């Protein structure tokens, strides 16, 4: 990761923001950016996982949570208060919406973005329209 530009850019990015509010320095896990949108019959969750290969991603579904853990191909070093921390994983735990059909969740991974499609449970009681 040694690059003149990268060090230059890092200085600007790190000076403005504190990693504490986002990353887990104790467990050395980066928290990835994610974006959640609702569509008619489903929710779509996108998770940004740069530097990760498809076969190094684990998606675990519990009754009410999604746990995403992914190993970085190359570790990511962050210097904080003069101490260097080496991150090797991304990890994020996301609460599932109620009425999520967890049996039919689908995932795909393209250009470093993990997309998780969560269908809604649409079964219900039919009512007549008057």
């Amino acid at each position, binding site marked *: 990761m040694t*690059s003149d530009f*990268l060090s230059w850019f890092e200085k*600007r990015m*790190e000076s403005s923001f504190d990693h504490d509010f986002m990353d887990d320095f104790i467990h050395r896990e980066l928290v990835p950016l994610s974006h959640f949108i609702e569509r008619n019959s489903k929710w779509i969750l996108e998770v940004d996982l740069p530097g990760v290969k498809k076969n190094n991603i684990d998606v675990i579904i519990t009754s009410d949570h999604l746990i995403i853990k992914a190993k970085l191909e190359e570790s990511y070093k962050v210097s904080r208060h003069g101490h260097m921390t080496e991150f090797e994983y991304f990890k994020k735990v996301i609460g599932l919406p109620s009425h999520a059909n967890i049996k039919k969740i689908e995932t795909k991974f393209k*250009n470093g973005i993990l997309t998780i499609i969560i269908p809604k449970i649409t079964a219900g009681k039919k009512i007549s329209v008057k």
Partner: protein
Amino acid sequence: MKKMQKELSILLIGIPGPGLIGTLSLNYIVHSLKMDIIGEVENPEITPVVFIDNGEIFGPVRIYKSGSIFVVLSDTPIDYELAPGFSQSILEFAEKNRIDMIVIPTGIHVPDRNVKNTKTYGLVTNEKLDAIMYENEIPKFLSGVIAGPDAIILTYLKNSPIPTLILFTECNLFFPDPESAIHTIQTISKIVNRNIDLTEFKKQINFLRLQGRHLMEETLNVIQQEKESTSPPQIYK
């Protein structure tokens, strides 16, 4: 006898926005062209953050120069309240330095975009710049919606006598998108007529995405301050 053509004075403005396109592209241009820092945009309302480089203290919005090219680069998002003052400062600086053209690179959200066929569209505030768009094969941004603080800045620039070109590169709105920024850099390189070697940038795509996470998060918080107006713009060609 060849007629001497005056080199245009160009001011490039990079503020955090969709995909961090402005931030990524102009940071790289400033670095590649070894531009000198010549000042700062001072505003007491801008996030009180400073960074130290080679023992010198700098604020979050800095001005760089190389020949007739100027760059204003902000490390912090410009929110709705800051946008009018920021725009005014930019215009005062542009007038004082006899800037011929302002260029603002930013991003436009395209869901499921084709990464290998990214496009950069242009929007001008003055028809004088149509020729620059044509010469550099930049398609026109014909119809759509621009929301957020960008819209406030654009309104100020539209009413100014200094012509402005806004470059919209297709990108992912929600995540840092250096791959799209490559296209922006190539377009700016043609406009300013400087060769910019992208080798170093291309090698560091993943790390740039990682490094930009916090700024992206902050930027989205600012863009989404007024939820009503954040529906991603559409292009109709």
